[in-house]
């Protein structure tokens, strides 16, 4: 088993508010991990620590061979290896879909523009939006914008993809089209960590489910833990029907 992500005893505080209290878990290559839990349980923070949008206060994180706690971390190298998709899409509104996608490859990887455009067309086809290259983000539906955001990450050919509640702002129909793309990526062997409220999706696609509570990994295992929760907290969480 080749480990892509490893967290060991990670602590994170925001001021006097401790958000993560000793979080540890591992993600193997090709694995899909769903992190679930109530709001404020620290799941999004844990995800953001993995590509160092947040710096941790104690513990160790290693991602795709980058030691995040080490001095001399190659931050841009880390960002090339790790893609992230956000709840709010965060596309660049002043750029077309095509420009949104080619920006990373051309500006970061120094790829020639023609080659980057070909690549962009390929990733757009993968998310089913080959015909939207010239549109501006605001002309697209939420589900389409989120798929463009996924395509933008894919264009950097990451080894690991992070998804931070990517369907929480979408209605059920649009959620379906985004989840379909994610399921496709999972079946192609992409290593994925997703913070999600989509229990059905976690059950079907995840290899590992991590239930977080009060800044800790409260319960962890295969998707079957959702059907047979051990802790009262997970039982009550699953029981709410979320």
């Amino acid at each position, binding site marked *: 088993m080749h480990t892509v992500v490893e967290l060991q005893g990670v602590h994170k505080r925001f001021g006097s508010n401790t958000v993560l209290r000793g979080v540890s878990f591992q993600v193997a290559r090709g694995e899909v991990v769903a992190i679930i839990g109530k709001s404020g349980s620290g799941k999004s923070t844990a995800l953001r620590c993995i590509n160092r949008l947040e710096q941790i206060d104690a513990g160790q994180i290693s991602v795709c061979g980058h030691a995040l706690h080490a001095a001399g971390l190659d931050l841009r190298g880390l*960002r090339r290896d790790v893609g992230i998709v*956000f709840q709010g899409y965060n596309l*660049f*509104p002043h750029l077309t879909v095509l420009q949104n996608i080619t920006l990373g490859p051309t*500006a*970061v*990887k120094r790829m020639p523009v023609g080659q980057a455009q070909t690549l962009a067309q390929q990733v757009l086809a993968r998310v089913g939006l080959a015909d939207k290259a010239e549109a501006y983000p605001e002309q697209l539906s939420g589900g389409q914008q989120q798929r463009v955001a996924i395509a*933008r990450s894919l264009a950097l050919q990451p080894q690991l993809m992070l998804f931070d509640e990517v369907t929480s702002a979408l209605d059920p129909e649009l959620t379906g089209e985004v989840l379909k793309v994610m399921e496709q990526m999972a079946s192609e062997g992409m290593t994925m960590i997703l913070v999600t409220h989509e229990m059905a999706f976690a059950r079907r696609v995840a290899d590992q489910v991590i239930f977080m509570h009060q800044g800790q990994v409260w319960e962890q295992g295969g998707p079957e833990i959702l059907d047979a929760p051990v802790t009262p907290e997970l039982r009550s969480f699953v029981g709410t029907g979320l």
Partner: protein
Amino acid sequence: MSEEQLLSLLQGAWGTVLLSGLTLLLGGIAGLALALARVSALPPLRRLAAAWIQLIQGTPLLVLMGVCFYGPALAGVGTVEALPAAATAMLIYASAFLGEIWRGCIQSVHKSQWEAAECIGLSRWQRMRMIVLPQALRMATPPTVGFAVQVIKNTSVASLVIGFAELSYNAKVLNNSTFQPFLYFGSAALLYFAMCYPLSRWSRALERKLHAHRR
């Protein structure tokens, strides 16, 4: 109005255009530098820029003009011509206001845009140049043009202290000898309008262009 008098007004208008142009060009460059310093990752640079802006915004333009015109002579480093002195004072004045306007526009670009740009691996400068500044520019257009119009009209202060021959000054001189204030100040007002109105029009056109993605 005689031909000579009209010519005098037009010469004054040229002085106004020249001083405004210099102010907006040089003040714009200094203002951009100040705005970037205000959002810099280096705290001392941020504080220095903030202090400069506070100081200048709290100083009347009239005083700045005086300092720039009489200051060098008082300090014993020689005299300054009217135009360079006026342009320097206006540049200092404009830099503080434009710097603060643009700082606000830069900071109003949502933090998530910075994050998204960071996550695709862009360097800090690339994020600023490719993602934040283009979006800030959109928001900056109306207040910037508004300030530019203020600059054009505030150039009249240059004649009060320095005696730089701009539009208001020449109108005043003409009125002093003819006692026809309505004619000369009215003509000056029309000329000011003729300078400011195209700016406002251009601003609207620019906004439309920058909002192309909303159509």
